[in-house]
């Protein structure tokens, strides 16, 4: 076994290194990804080792980054592009939604678009405007895209390589406030499939479903609930499109209660989708309505207020209590 302890950031870096090493068609593109190694250093050292032809500093033009990545993919390359921060993906949103997502279908399946768009997302790092958002639902809503988010180093390592190997476009959301959290990575293990949810903690009284940055919060909430004698199961969804509803259903049939937690605004968010589907699938098993904990229908607030905005331990535990009270 080759188990190493490393941060999520390091795991992503190792993952990219492995992908560049294994497949000469893999390219890294983005703003500052070369010499600087990216503003979060996820691509640190890669240009030094693989050269400017493989790790490409681009002009500051997000539509251009994704649009040219599409062209490179059409030529047989597998571009992995970095969008510097969540709030800056929107100039590229047109290319992602109108072009990247649909081209495979429009060509009757004759061409493939293996493009990965990496987006550091979410709050909790005290950043300025446009550096803390969670736009995942905007992408998950679009057919033709796959949307995933690792919550820990091991998933960071494996899921990124799986995303790069996928012949579909994958929007890869990286929880930026977890970049420095360390975890064990077994670089020889056989990983879970990219879109399978994982039971992060078993429990019998209630299920907390989360992904990305909120998995850790939910694990802490489950530990706190345990002290009060409540057994809470935590599901790490890992993939927002597709969603592993079978795994959620299995858990809810056991616990009979579900709370979905994410940073993104609750309104029209992934929690709404999960609540609706699980209500349909588990109507006779549920003891309580599916509850949601997430952001408000308001712009992401200035950093001094983000602790109020982000779902923390207390808001999650409050939802657990409300569910159990039914």
């Amino acid at each position, binding site marked *: 076994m080759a188990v190493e302890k490393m941060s999520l950031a390091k795991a992503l870096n190792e993952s990219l290194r492995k992908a560049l090493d294994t497949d000469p068609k893999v390219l890294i593109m983005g703003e500052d990804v070369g010499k600087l190694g990216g503003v979060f250093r996820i691509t640190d050292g890669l240009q030094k080792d693989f050269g400017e032809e493989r790790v490409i500093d681009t002009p500051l033009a997000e539509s251009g980054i994704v649009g040219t990545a599409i062209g490179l993919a059409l030529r047989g390359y597998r571009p992995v592009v970095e969008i510097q921060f969540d709030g800056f993906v929107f100039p590229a949103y047109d290319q992602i939604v109108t072009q990247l997502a649909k081209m495979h279908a429009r060509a*009757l399946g004759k061409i493939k678009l293996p493009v990965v768009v990496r987006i550091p997302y979410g709050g909790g790092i005290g950043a300025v405007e446009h550096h803390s958002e969670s736009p995942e639902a905007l992408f998950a809503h679009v057919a033709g895209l796959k949307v995933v988010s690792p919550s820990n180093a091991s998933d960071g390592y494996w899921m990124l390589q799986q995303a790069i190997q996928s012949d579909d476009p994958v929007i890869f959301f990286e929880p930026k406030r977890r970049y420095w959290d360390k975890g064990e990575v077994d670089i020889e293990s056989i990983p879970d499939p990219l879109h399978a949810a994982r039971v992060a903690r078993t429990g019998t009284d209630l299920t907390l479903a989360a992904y990305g940055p909120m998995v850790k919060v939910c694990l802490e909430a489950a530990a706190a609930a345990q002290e009060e004698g409540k057994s809470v199961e935590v599901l790490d969804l890992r993939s927002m499109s597709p969603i592993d509803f079978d795994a959620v259903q299995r858990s809810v049939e056991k616990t009979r209660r579900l709370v979905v937690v994410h940073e993104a605004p609750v309104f029209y968010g992934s929690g709404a989708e999960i609540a609706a589907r699980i209500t349909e699938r588990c109507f006779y098993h549920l003891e309580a309505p599916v509850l949601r904990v997430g952001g408000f229908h308001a712009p992401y607030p200035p950093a001094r207020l983000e602790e109020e905005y982000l779902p923390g331990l207390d808001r999650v535990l409050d939802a657990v209590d409300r569910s159990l009270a039914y």
Partner: protein
Amino acid sequence: MTVESTAARKPRRSSKRVSAAKKPASSEPQLVQLLTPEGERVEHPDYDIDLSPEELRGLYRDMVLTRRFDAEATALQRQGELGLWASLLGQEAAQIGSGRALRDDDYVFPTYREHGVAWCRGVDPTNLLGMFRGVNHGGWDPNSNNFHLYTIVIGSQTLHATGYAMGVAKDGADSAVIAYFGDGASSQGDVAESFTFSAVYNAPVVFFCQNNQWAISEPTERQTRVPLYQRAQGFGFPGVRVDGNDVLACLAVTRSALERARRGEGPTLVEAFTYRMGAHTTSDDPTKYRHDDERQAWEAKDPILRLRTYLENQGLADEAFFTELDKESDVLAKRVREAVRAMPDPDHMAIFDNVYADGHALVDEERAQFAAYQASFADASEEGK
């Protein structure tokens, strides 16, 4: 550098006399021309071209057949066989000239009006009609003729072309890539970004802008204050304006730009100065925004007529050639008409086809639900018997 007369031209709607008073395109200083509207062969110091009589007849044939195909598609739209059609009438020289400059291994990124270029690539013209009939959103394999799908979102494809060209350069291949777009599209950010990317990466791409003077109802003056070809200068690569109704000049200029790309010297912007003779699409009514005298002025510059005059005056084509071509046009039109009418509606389940290359659980689930729903009608009608 002097800003030529087009930049100073006033918006047409402000004065009825403007278009009549306008200098003809052929007299504009920067316009590359090899065949005048009167069908006279002229020389240009930078763009010499020597074509055999057979090649000249070939270009004429391409333009005539493309125009006939286009007219047939317009008629099919009127007959309710197509939901929409974007006619290329008037732009045959720009498309056939540039299209015939391409090599098989070059790659084309068109917008939605490049029927003549598709013709040059050997794409079966009936394939172009599927999306206008509403049976698909593309309908051909882009790799079988190196002709990408039509792109509706204007300007998007210029970035795909640039990325593809970056890949060509990485592969060490000497193919070139060509991106088509309109004068309206030139205002889109993606086009500017593709200029930036192609310049800084020295990508082997030719930007072929068909300035047909109008973006639906908006004149070129609403897109730019300088002649479009001059834009390239600010990005660090050459721009050239060619008489877009002169098939020889379009061929020569595009060929030269492609060769430049192949030599590793990077992008070129070609502005083909032409005119859209018809409506923007079959849904458009150009009488609301442009005067008929403008169209008449451009009719005198018709790309097909001038080549015919040249062929006839030089004795390069006889009556039999023209008669034969008429017959060939009729056959093509008939084939297209029959093919469109025979085009089946897609199977209901096609909604779920090719959404993903690797599959997706939600698509599988919805496909199964929809299939069961559809089957319930069949069951119900069985029971009714």
